[in-house]
């Protein structure tokens, strides 16, 4: 896209987009595609162009292969788990739960995958933030891991609160630990993932001066908690959201969600206005 086109697009939408956002549909070669635990698979592809352009929180629209069982017609949006400019590698962490992800799971090293992106609005870090708190559950952690790395690269400290059903479902701890994040694991199996306990953890972060901003993904319950605390304590926040999607480019208006803006309900497209939104404006899903 031309710079002029991108600038004009800025005036047309509510979202700031950089000129030459570099969205393209590329054929990426699969490097590996393996299970990481009972529930999640990790897809690693070589996509040098997109790998150097993707920002934490952005997503790709993947054309999922047809299998003996399924012929997924639409692409599937998948948030970026890792995008490494140096190696040209892009990773996706996904749970197999439908025709699209069953198709993805059938990919083998050497296969090719069409991926459109990077798409959407990613996370933004303010220059005066010194320490952030990320709170995620399930595959939502896939979206937050690159955010933690982006923060670390800017010398922003990270506390990662990782919620899961049980210890076997805990994801991404090494990703957070490697950048020196303080990691708190809370589980359904021992009751530590209760809203009350997570609230205590978040309040402690705030009391210790480690909560300049809140970030969350993957749980409505945890989003509402963070939103309430953020409002009470005056902490800015961002939430990455999901919605059933068709085009991925803001054209079809399928993936809308409601937001509360200045007392009014506003409909926004997850693919184009998000998927990262201001936490204070999000509504329950």
């Amino acid at each position, binding site marked *: *896209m031309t710079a*002029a*086109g*991108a600038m*004009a*697009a800025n*005036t*047309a*939408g509510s979202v700031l987009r950089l000129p030459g*956002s570099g*969205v*393209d*549909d590329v054929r990426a070669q699969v490097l590996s595609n393996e299970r990481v635990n009972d529930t999640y698979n990790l897809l690693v592809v070589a996509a040098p162009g997109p790998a150097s352009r993707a920002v934490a929180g952005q997503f790709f629209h993947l*054309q999922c292969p047809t299998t003996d069982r399924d*012929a*997924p*017609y*639409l*692409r599937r949006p998948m948030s970026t788990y890792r995008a490494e400019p140096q190696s040209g590698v892009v990773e996706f962490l996904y749970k197999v739960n439908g*025709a699209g992800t069953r198709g993805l799971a059938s990919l083998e090293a050497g296969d090719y995958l069409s991926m*459109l992106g990077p798409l959407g609005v990613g996370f933004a870090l303010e220059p005066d933030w010194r320490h952030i708190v990320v709170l995620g559950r399930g595959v939502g952690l896939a979206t937050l891991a690159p955010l933690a790395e982006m923060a670390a690269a800017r010398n922003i400290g990270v506390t990662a609160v990782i919620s899961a059903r049980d210890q076997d479902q805990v994801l991404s701890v090494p990703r957070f630990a490697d950048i020196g994040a303080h990691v708190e694991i809370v589980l359904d199996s021992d009751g530590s993932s209760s809203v009350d306990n997570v609230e205590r953890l978040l309040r402690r972060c705030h009391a210790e001066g480690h909560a300049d901003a809140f970030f969350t993904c993957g749980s409505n319950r945890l989003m509402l908690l963070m939103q309430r605390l953020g409002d009470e304590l005056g902490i800015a926040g961002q939430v990455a959201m999901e*919605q*059933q*999607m*068709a*085009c*991925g*480019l*803001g*054209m*079809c*208006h*399928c*993936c*809308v*969600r409601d937001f509360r803006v200045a007392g009014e309900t506003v*409909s926004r497209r997850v693919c*184009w206005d998000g998927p990262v939104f201001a936490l204070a404006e999000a509504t329950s899903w």
Partner: protein
Amino acid sequence: MVDMGVQIGGLALANPVMPASGTFAEGLADVVDFNRLGAMVTKTITAELRSGNRVPRVAEISNGLLNSIGIPSKGLDYFLSETLPFYRQFESPLVVSISAPTADAFAELAGRLQLPGIAAIEANISCPNIEEDGHAFAMSASSTSQVMRKLRAASSLPLWAKLTPNTGDVVAVARAAEDAGADALVVANTILAMSIDTETRRPTLGNIMGGLSGPAVKPIIVRMTYQCARAVTIPVIGCGGIADANDAVEFMLAGASAVQVGTATFVQPHAMTQVIDGLAAYCARKGVDRVADLTGAVSDAGLRLGDSEILP
């Protein structure tokens, strides 16, 4: 070199490929060069603000999808101040798709769009998602005639009528639109449809019913294009499940003068430019000098509709 130009009423297009309304917006300019398109067609606008239908608004089916978007619209003022200036920076002619609740409101909106940078009006008299039970003007010849006459009186721009497949007699509707002054027909909008999740027993769409599009509808709309093109003298623009150049050729052979690519763009963002390149390649391979020569060039000589022998 194949001459790719086509004439749609008074409007000359550099090639016969354009987007279907609702499957095209500013975001695609990140991926596709809009100056390559025969025309640009906006998402349907309305004069009033509309929030659209409840989610889920999309459901995947075999080879296609159901949608019930419900024409969310930021209104005419937003269109004029934000959307129109965006499209004005491109050379391809801009076709503005419009909708309104009444024939008078349709005419009023069309009258306010006689502006530089707008090359034609596409009257979306066929959206299945905004009236109760999927009703639309283009379901009957009389309501089509009524709304198109008022539109014709209100605007001197080329006027395209987008028809619906959800009618028992598309030929009568096509003739009514032509008689009322339409410069071209777009055949057609989505097919009213429904699907149910058998696990949850819930309709897959928040609106219960929605419009079916994608490759699954193509043979039905090819048939309607063939019927309409034989019944009217104005150009027909084919729209229904076109995903590649071969599909576009099929529609043109059936009688279409141009084609709209819609749902395919959701799957392959470059679908429109691939169709343009593929059409040129087809013409070159077949020795066709002008792409317009494909229009109505189906070899149906010696075949007759309903020509079956009644056995004793």
